[in-house]
């Protein structure tokens, strides 16, 4: 019964925030189904109207809080009324079929959508209590606090050293060369790359292998000492061995950073994350502990996705 209660309260909260009083929240069928642990069979249309998320969007020690986030690309409503909390030292995986909005949501968290002319973000996202979309908040400073690793490794066409030193340099994190050297070495060390590149720091970063390039990008990101790291399918261009190394790395990094990872691989989500959020057609369908999602999904769409029937 605990689950049922949680679900209901969650839906209610969402409902209040969405201020859509005309929708019947306590749908008897919904509640009953959730209570019995059977996946809820909600038609997509009804889901859209509800805008409600199954599972637990709240967490114990929230650091990044998204409330009723909507994103429009021109006329396309890419993200609809998404509410999600992310705590300070956890790995949360965003999964879902292509075009479901998980990457868009990720890019909202460090305002990378700003560079897209037609994108419009509404709702409220806070980082440690500060509204990152408020006028006073500088997106440049935000991106130093919320780092990002992209789908395709994108090292700058500079030396390995300069790649890692790029962030500290533009943010003035080092007072002299020795400090900068320290930051570069530490970052490479933490990204598990130092051993491989120690003797060729002045060689171009583009000369590394794909997996090394991606770890270089991670090193580059942690060199500016962010609080949150966003990863947009960081392993989709890598082979299984390089992927395993990155996953180990995420595990280590999660001791210090909140990590939000978008992935198409459910095995990866299961291996690295503590919580999983399932997106579908711009809606956040279900959020829960990773184990719960993969063993006992409550929403029909989630179940269909993780069992391979859609997406």
């Amino acid at each position, binding site marked *: 019964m605990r689950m049922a209660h949680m679900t209901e309260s969650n839906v209610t909260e969402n409902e209040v925030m969405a201020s859509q009083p005309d929708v019947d929240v306590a749908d008897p069928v919904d509640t009953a189904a959730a209570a019995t642990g059977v996946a809820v069979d909600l038609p997509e249309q009804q889901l859209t109207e509800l805008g409600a998320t199954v599972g637990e969007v709240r967490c114990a020690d929230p650091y990044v809080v998204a409330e009723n986030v909507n994103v429009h690309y021109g006329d396309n409503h890419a993200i609809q009324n998404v509410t999600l909390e992310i705590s300070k030292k956890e790995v949360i995986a965003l999964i879902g079929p292509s075009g479901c909005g998980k990457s868009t949501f990720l890019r909202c968290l460090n305002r*990378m959508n700003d560079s897209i002319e037609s994108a419009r973000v509404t709702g409220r996202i806070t980082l440690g209590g500060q509204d990152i979309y408020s006028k006073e908040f500088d997106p440049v400073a935000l991106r130093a606090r919320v780092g990002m690793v992209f789908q395709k490794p*994108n090292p700058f066409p500079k030396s390995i050293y300069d790649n890692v030193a790029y962030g500290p340099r533009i943010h003035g994190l080092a007072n002299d060369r020795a400090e900068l050297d320290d930051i570069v070495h530490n970052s490479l060390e933490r990204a598990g790359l130092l051993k491989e590149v120690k003797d060729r720091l002045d060689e171009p970063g583009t000369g590394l292998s794909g997996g090394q390039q991606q770890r270089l990008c991670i090193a*580059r990101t942690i060199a500016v000492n962010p609080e949150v790291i966003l990863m947009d399918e960081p392993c989709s261009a890598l082979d299984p061995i390089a992927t395993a190394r990155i996953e180990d790395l995420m595990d280590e990094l999660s001791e210090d950073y909140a990590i939000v990872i978008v992935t198409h691989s459910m095995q990866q989500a299961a291996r690295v994350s503590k919580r999983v959020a399932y997106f579908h057609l711009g809606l956040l369908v279900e959020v829960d502990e990773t184990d719960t999602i993969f063993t006992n999904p409550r929403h029909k769409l989630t179940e269909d996705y993780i069992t391979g029937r859609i997406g």
Partner: protein
Amino acid sequence: MQGTTLILVIGAMAIAAYYMGRSRSVALVGGPTQGTALHSLPGYYGYFTAIWCLLPALAVLLLWVLLEPRVIVALVVQGLPEAQRNLPPGELNLLVNNIQNLAAGDAVSGTVDASLQDAANRFNEYKVLSRKILTVLTLGLGGLGAAIAWRRIRPDFRARNRVEQIVLVALIAASSIAIFTTIGIVLSVLFEAIRFFQKVPATEFLFGLNWSPQTAIRADQVGSSGSFGAVPLFTGTLLITAIAMLVAVPVGLMTAIYLAEYSSRRVRGIAKPLLEVLAGIPTVVYGFFAALTVAPWVRRAGESMGLEVASESALAAGLVMGIMIIPLVSSLSDDAINAVPSAMRDGALGLGSTRSETMTRVILPAALPGIVGGILLAVSRAIGETMIVVMAAGLAANLTANPFEAVTTVTVQIVTLLVGDQEFDSAKTLAAFALGLVLFVVTLLLNVIGLNVVRKYREQYD
């Protein structure tokens, strides 16, 4: 048959050959459903047959067109009376011209006598005969080629490979045209320049400080022997080019940065075509703009500051040339900046760079090869530009680095040397070729150096 008709008929034959080759290949394997039994698609058998119809016929036609006039003239000359055949070449040429004019029904110089009329008649006869032979020969060869190709078609015949080979040869031929033209131009300039250096020592030309190419027109005339020191011309060219680049590179580059990274789509949609309009203005218009508007303005501005400015100053020509080159620099730099993958931009922004940091630290270094390439092209354009400097910079070959004085450039001097009424083997005329050669070498060196610099310092993205 007329030439055009002949070509049309051959074309029709080729089309027919295509269908015959195609249908034979299909028939050989027993109908269209058995297509996989053929080595190539049926169309390739058709193309193969058509090519063998076209190629021999067109080759003969081309040869005929090239050789026919000479052969006919030789035959006509052979039939002339002994006395006329032994005329000196110049007069014989005149006579042949007369015969040709008479044959074509044009006006003839001198009186028309019986032998001339006779020769003209024979000229016409030969011409008709030649047409007949040509028609038979080309059509016959076309038919023969098609027939042989048609007979060679077997199900295992590799028609596709043959056709692709022929296409490859055609592609190579097309690409060599530009190369051979370049070589031809270089050689012709080179030989004329060598003739010049036989009259004027190369050291004097390359290192002489005085340019005054006035030579006596007639041998008995009293006049200067001319001095051909090209250094003032090259310094003049460099001065004007430097001024032009000082205007074009910063303005063009900043335009490109604004358009590529900062402008909204609407502004870009308006500004880019407008810039291209600037590129479309004829240089002669820039020339009189420079001469009539900018030069007087520069002089007045200079005078108001107490400077002495020539009315045809290097500054005016350089400024206008720089404006002319802005679209070239901006559009090539814009392309180079846009070619940098957006992943670089995202990476830099994702680390918390501002837009200007992203631009100066990531995008520009990555786009540098393209930008430098564009600037090099612009330099070549500035060095080779003629019209603006003819009108605005003047003809005085002053050896100076002062932009307020009148200077002249290599291209301007080439123009003035060649529009004179000198004979074509005088040192004055030949000097134009020597100038052209040195200009070519300088531009080539600039390009080679520039490309090497770019290769060394480029930041290669993948």
